[in-house]
């Protein structure tokens, strides 16, 4: 056996372990998907899509995606504490690797949700996006933004007497910049085609990238204090 400090492969090990656990127990994905499809059904049922302008449609979409994130993204950390496996992990893994691995897992989970919710949403809202490329970019970056702000909050909540609502209460204010930019960019994607939509959404896209980078950087610096508290 040889020893090497490879932050990257250690994070991937955490990701792989979470994916494997998820595959075997279906702890998170099925609950989250059920929730998001239900939320989508409620939205679709209560509004006539033809009465909605692109901003409203974008807002509804991201409301569903946000609450899906609130239902799913805390599970990976909460599960470690509930099943008491966190101790074994704490003693063998570096905090950075744990954070990155869980962040990657949350990105994968939220992407899976988005991959199902967005097409379903377009179907139910009878909408053809004027700018599919921009829509994909907005969704992908919005997903990244949601995961970036939620992961460390999930860790915080797992170390508290976590009751479900606490996660959403803590995460929402911090997620706002990401959410509002995602909604803005999505509205542009639904409304217009290049180059007008691109120019309109450029600011939002820039904010999403900067915001995600900032949240991940801040999380990396602070995670140790949460994980080892």
């Amino acid at each position, binding site marked *: *056996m040889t020893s090497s400090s490879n932050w990257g492969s250690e994070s991937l090990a955490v990701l792989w372990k979470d994916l494997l*656990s998820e595959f075997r127990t279906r702890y998170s994905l099925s609950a989250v998907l059920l929730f998001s499809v239900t939320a989508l059904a409620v939205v679709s049922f209560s509004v006539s899509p033809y009465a909605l302008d692109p901003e409203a449609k974008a807002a509804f979409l991201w409301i569903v995606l946000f609450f899906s994130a609130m239902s799913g993204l805390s599970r990976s950390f909460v599960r470690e504490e509930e099943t008491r496996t966190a101790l074994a992990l704490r003693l063998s893994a570096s905090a950075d690797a744990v954070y990155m691995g869980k962040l990657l897992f949350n990105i994968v989970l939220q992407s899976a949700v988005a991959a199902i919710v967005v097409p379903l949403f377009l179907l139910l809202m009878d909408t053809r996006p004027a700018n599919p490329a921009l829509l994909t970019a907005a969704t992908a970056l919005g997903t990244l933004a949601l995961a970036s702000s939620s992961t460390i909050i999930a860790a915080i909540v797992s170390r508290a007497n976590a009751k479900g609502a606490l996660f959403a209460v803590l995460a929402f204010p911090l997620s706002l910049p990401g959410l509002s930019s995602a909604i803005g960019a999505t509205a542009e994607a639904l409304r217009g085609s290049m180059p007008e939509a691109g120019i309109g959404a450029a600011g939002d896209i820039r904010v999403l990238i900067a915001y995600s980078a900032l949240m991940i950087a801040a999380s990396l610096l602070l995670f140790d204090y949460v994980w080892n508290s």
Partner: protein
Amino acid sequence: MTTDGKTEVFELVLESVSKSYGARQVLRSVSATVRTGQVLAITGPNGSGKSTLIKAVCRLIRPTHGRILWKLGGKEVPAEAGRKVIGFVSPDLMFYDELTAAENLRFFAQVRGMKIADEDIESALDSLHLGGRGSDVVGSYSSGMKQRLKYAYALQHDPPLLLLDEPTANLDTQGVSLVHDLIEDSKRSKCIVIATNEPEEVGLGDIVIKLGE
């Protein structure tokens, strides 16, 4: 940890370690120095702070006063390197029930930054009388088997400091003697701390700390 075939000496220093939770004082100025080749036995009635002291030693909790020092080859080991120098067994330790024993061990090795081969995992399991059970999920293990698996977890990275909280919990007579042999064997190249109420295990200690007086 070996350099030039000789084991570097590991030193664990406890300087007046105290721990209080609010008004309740659990540990009162505990001091000791333990080196490679020595066993520190911590004993005392339930609730006297044995587990608290073990957790303080591996920096899972911070002492209210005093400090804990890890030294390898005379140089101080920083807190972040704890995962490389400590092997930990405790009733609080749990593994992933939905993964097999081999998958668990492989995961922990990877996350420690180690390259581990399947044969290494197999032989580790064999030596703990878990041979052939590597591809069973840990959820199907008995408590005695889980206890033995904890030793595979604690030893896979050959740490110079071994912390054993209730080393023979859940073990039958065979398991108990397995662990006692293991402690004897490891003693030569490791520094060992045991928290226990078993008189036989307290007897293994070169230094004994009695808590709760």
